[in-house]
């Protein structure tokens, strides 16, 4: 047991490392070289800590750390079960690769105003939200990552950033306030906000109607954060405005935190009326999928299309949660990992295209297949994976979800998910045709941008994360069986939280 106790502090590492490095980076923020080194070191440290953590969780079960020694439910507990550890690894990977990309793509002015410390604080908030076992602590970590994201979104002060940023700020603050309201009500009813203690005490709580209302408040609050229908309109207004590295990290991590919170709450805490809550989640998932992809089909700017697709894919993750079987949850987890990898990759590809042609508008782009076939291949890997084409990761994620839906007889949502997959493929084909296949616009009045060749060493740094993420998408598809084993074990832990509750409450 002594060995396991010593390992518990691993849970704290993904939070402490980025914080310390962020403070150091902030102190040297006028020196871009130190900034970049520290940013890379911090993100790399988070990734290493995450990998060590997941190995510990895989071998020794749920890792628990009571902050300050105060036992649950009196103090704040950090808990790493397999789901949390997986998400922290995802955060580490995405954070590190986007930091590598930022080394070249983020200009010195933004770096001197604290881009790298802000990115590290964002990573800290994301990891904190994944690792906490207390609802109020979840609110605090949400606010930390929200503040960092506000600053990252508006850093640079272009008009689009300010406009989109204001909507992002307002809607996310409303979401936080709704979350806080629900927290207050839960505390009033039960006297505790520790998730494991709630899981134990809520089935016996009075006023089940009020409990259902509170769970719906949580659904709305986290639904805004996760970009669920009809609460997602802040996302397409804001995600395409900042520099592409910021967009990539937002789309890879921030909506996942909202989905993570929903999954955690509706598998651990709010299980009193699953016939209503999970059916509602299923309906919302279907609507999200459809409205997201229809929005994407109408757009003509590379990043706006991808932003709307992000919304649509959140619908798939919620479909897994709504179906509420082990295979469905495993599919949802697989989907969360696959989507982060692939979507971040697509955003980074759009960034490389921007660096070469100077625009994101589809009508100003073209000819990338002839000019840069490697980039076209990398795009194709991610796009086909997103659309769910075998042998890439998206196929197996969608297959798990569809199989789980068919096993339960929910033919409606399965049909919707397959139709949305077809529309996603259509949208990806549109981007392919416009950006890579067609000839570049040559008429001077058409505003066609010339192709700027990027220096080879800069291009190598820009492309390295793209290659790694594309490789990850391929590997997750080819090695689908080990990945499925991993997420199935995580899903089983979610559906049977006895180990989680026992380890936290110590009984």
């Amino acid at each position, binding site marked *: 047991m002594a060995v396991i106790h010593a390992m518990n502090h691993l849970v704290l590492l993904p939070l402490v490392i980025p914080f310390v490095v962020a403070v150091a980076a902030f102190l040297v923020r006028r020196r871009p070289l130190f900034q970049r080194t520290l940013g890379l070191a911090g993100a790399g440290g988070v990734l290493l800590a995450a990998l060590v953590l997941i190995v510990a969780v895989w071998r020794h079960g749920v890792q628990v750390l009571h902050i300050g020694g105060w036992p649950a439910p009196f103090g704040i507990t950090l808990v790493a079960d397999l789901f949390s550890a997986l998400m922290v690894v995802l955060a580490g990977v995405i954070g590190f690769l986007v930091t590598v990309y930022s080394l070249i793509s983020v200009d010195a002015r933004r770096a001197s105003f604290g881009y790298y410390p802000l990115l590290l604080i964002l990573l800290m908030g994301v990891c904190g939200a994944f690792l906490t076992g207390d609802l109020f602590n979840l609110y605090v970590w949400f*606010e930390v990552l929200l503040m960092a994201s506000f600053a990252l979104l508006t850093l640079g002060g272009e008009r689009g950033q300010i*406009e989109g940023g204001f909507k992002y700020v307002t809607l996310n603050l409303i979401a936080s306030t709704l979350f*806080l309201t629900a927290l*207050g009500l839960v*505390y*009033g009813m039960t006297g505790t906000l520790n998730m494991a203690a709630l899981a134990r005490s809520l089935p016996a709580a009075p006023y089940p109607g009020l409990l259902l209302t509170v769970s719906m408040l949580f659904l709305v609050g986290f639904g805004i954060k996760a970009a669920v229908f009809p609460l997602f309109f802040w996302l397409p207004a804001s995600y395409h405005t900042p520099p592409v590295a910021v967009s990539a990290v937002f789309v890879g991590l921030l909506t996942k935190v909202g989905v993570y919170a929903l999954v955690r709450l509706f598998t651990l805490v709010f299980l009193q009326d699953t016939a209503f809550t999970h059916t509602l989640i299923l309906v919302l998932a279907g609507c999200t999928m459809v409205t997201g992809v229809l929005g994407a089909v109408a757009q003509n700017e590379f990043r706006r299309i991808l932003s709307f697709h992000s919304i649509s894919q959140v619908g798939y993750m919620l479909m897994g949660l709504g179906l509420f079987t082990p295979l469905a949850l495993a599919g949802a987890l697989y989907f969360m990992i696959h989507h982060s990898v692939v979507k971040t990759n697509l955003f980074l590809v759009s960034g490389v295209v921007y660096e070469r042609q100077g625009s994101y508008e589809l009508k100003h782009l073209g000819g990338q297949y002839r000019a840069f076939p490697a980039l076209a291949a990398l795009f194709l890997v991610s796009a086909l994976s997103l659309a769910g084409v075998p042998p890439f990761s998206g196929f197996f994620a969608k297959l798990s979800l569809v199989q789980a839906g068919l096993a339960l007889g929910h033919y409606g949502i399965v049909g919707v998910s397959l139709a949305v997959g077809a529309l996603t493929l259509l949208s990806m084909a549109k981007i392919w045709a416009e950006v890579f296949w067609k000839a570049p616009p040559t008429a001077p009045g058409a505003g066609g941008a010339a192709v700027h060749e990027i220096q080879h060493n800069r291009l190598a740094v820009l492309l390295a994360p793209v290659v790694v993420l594309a490789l990850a998408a391929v590997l997750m598809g080819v090695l689908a069986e080990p990945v499925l084993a991993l997420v199935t074990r995580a899903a089983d832990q979610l559906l049977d939280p006895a180990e989680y509750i026992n380890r936290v409450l110590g009984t």
Partner: protein
Amino acid sequence: MAVVLAVVIGVLYGVALFLLLRRSLAKVILGLAILTNATNLLIFTVAGLVRARPPIVAPDAEQLTPPFADPVPQAFILTAIVIGFGVLAFALVLAYRAFQVVGSDDLDDMRSTDTLPPDSPTLPEQIADSGRVQGSEAGREPAVVRDGTAEESG
């Protein structure tokens, strides 16, 4: 007493939501401030209103005897106030910057990032006008005016 506070909280939420739906930047910020205040008051009320019984163990006792004022929600409220203060400070500066960049206080003037650009070929009028599915810009009609304001492309 709890009923009075409940009514006050309800009124505050109503006022905050009303302000959040206004067109002026300043009113939206005010709405956010009142919303956070209403939530803090809600946490305070919901945890139980106990008068004149601080959570201090009497010298001759070993445990607190209920009822006592619960210190935990007060800690929550303090944290929420501080977070709200930081966030509101940022939102105020952002609103001022938005006013400087856009030149007006009206949220209807700040829609360039969430509408399609006026020369987008997806708009039905453009498809009908140009007679092509995907046209180039040469010879195109001037930008469609939407809702009385002419937007520049995003």
